[in-house]
């Protein structure tokens, strides 16, 4: 399974049924899906979804065709002055966006971060913030 972060822009929500647009588009692909996180963001409804790895391309395409945004950019900020490179966040990151480099320093890869936020309350220094 692989994790994607999708946003349904508020502009696309005209009636109550539109809220389930993301799920409906995915269900049309006849696959099962796990909803890891639901949140209301500044620009729309965010869903963090766990989907079968081999279906990622077809799902991304179908979502985009329906004007649903598939996010790939990072969603957390790490305060490096507070961070002590312990690693308490690393095991929680589903995409290895948070990882240790060879020296043992925490590295954060913006491209890989999906903004699931699992790391935020795992940080003993409160150094991770959601953007």
């Amino acid at each position, binding site marked *: 399974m692989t994790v994607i972060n999708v946003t349904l822009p508020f502009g696309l929500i005209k009636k109550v049924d539109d809220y389930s647009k993301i799920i409906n588009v995915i269900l049309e692909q006849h696959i099962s899906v796990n909803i890891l996180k639901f949140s209301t963001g500044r620009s729309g409804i965010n869903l963090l979804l766990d989907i079968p790895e081999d279906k990622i391309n077809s799902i991304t395409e179908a979502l985009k065709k329906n004007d649903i945004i598939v996010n790939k950019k990072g969603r957390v900020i790490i305060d490096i002055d507070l961070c*002590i*490179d*312990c*690693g*308490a*966040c*690393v*095991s*929680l*990151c589903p995409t290895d966006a948070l*990882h*240790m480099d060879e*020296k*043992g*320093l925490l590295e954060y890869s913006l491209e890989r971060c999906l903004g699931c936020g*699992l790391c935020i*309350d*795992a940080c*003993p*220094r*409160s150094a991770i913030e959601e953007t």
Partner: protein
Amino acid sequence: MTKTYSEINEKIRNGNVVVLTAEEMIDFVDEHGVKVAADEIDVVTTGTFGPMCSSGAFLNFGNTDPPIKFEHLWLNDVHAYHGNAAVDCYIGCTRMADISPFEYGGGHVIEDLVSGKPIRLKGNSYTTDCYPLAEVDTEFTIDDINQAILCNPRNGYQRYVCAVNSSEKTIYTYMGKLLPNFGNAHYAGAGSLSPLSNDPDYETIGLGTRIFLGGGIGYVIGEGTQHSPSNRFGTLFLKGNLKQMTPEYLRGVTYEKYGTSMFVGVGIPIPILNEGLAKKTAISDENLLTDVVDYGVPRRDRPKLRQVTYKELKSGSIELNGKKIKCSSLSSLFHSRKIAETLKNWILNGNFLLNPPAETLPTDTIFKTMKLTSELKFVKDLKKDAEICYEDCDVKIVAEKIVRKNTNHIVIIDREHTLKGIVTSFDITKAIAEDKHELNEIITKRVFTTKDNEPISNAARKMKINKISALPVIDDERKVVGIITSEELM
């Protein structure tokens, strides 16, 4: 060949001492062998930087005029312990602030103090003839006070376990956030860099050993609490002058829903007095074993699932039940290395001499459990028979049973006695209000449950956290064997 402490110190003074970090020693011995290493290497430095809950500091503020004898005192709203003379106190790192608990605690006070930040001191007294002042509210920095002594009853665990979670929900522990169904793993300790791993028989580390502590100089002042050498869980009691330390190596931390603690930086030099120590300090992560322990079971003796090497732990994932799970450290390897490196430089620069311990640490003590005078009660001791109805019965029958049996909870089962849900008297009231007649419409299907062998306190916590008043007791096949309600607990 053997060496003595004075020979090594002579070399330190002369500037020709040979020092390696514990990681470098592994490669050296690998390449040149133990014999050459014992001849050529004088000191091996170790380091660790991780959360150490048994840490704190003694402070002395000096006397006020008129004098005060503190009864209670707070440093930045963190209650400090006052059971000593008038203006002494002990600030412990796990004590949380009264106003913002789980955000700020004693460890943060110590970090702020070492950083030179002003600390708010509030204290009160019942007053005596010799100490008439009733209240103090002031600010101070580390330079304003007489003594600031870091004094940690248990630091530098020889090794620590690797924590996982078998339960179905995320748990928040002192081993960090553990995802359900073995979703991740956390370990602590620096492995081959850890001080006591490099002197596992406590030949050189003992009472009076001079060490790196919190960026300054400290001393081992004995065995740590819970020192358990017989199963290689040795610990150290450390002290040092906080005024010489740096915040880089003393960091206040908060573990979500657990509480506060402090990262402490500890580095210990090990003199290579003989071949035995050369061999021991060359221990690698492959040869350091610890247990993978299931923190999903909230008991003292948590299930040990397998043994694992620090090499596997540091690889980023461990294997469990044929599955790879992500694994990360709670201690900082980077800072542990930096500590070993810093201590090495202190010795190379002639600023740090080694000394033999006045007494070595005990090698045969064991870690006892708490003696309880009252017997631990389990669910099976307090449960009662559950009032049950079958899943296909009418709401009215459930209602009648509630009245007849004078109870608030009816457990719903199928013909095999398997748990299907629970209905409370409130659910019945709601059914009448909403004109519902089908049991299916009012039943709570996702039920929190307990088992016979669960301690009562754990069941009570489950009810409190989930704001519920009863837990059906089930067996391993989810068959209902009773119920425990808040009434039995009172």
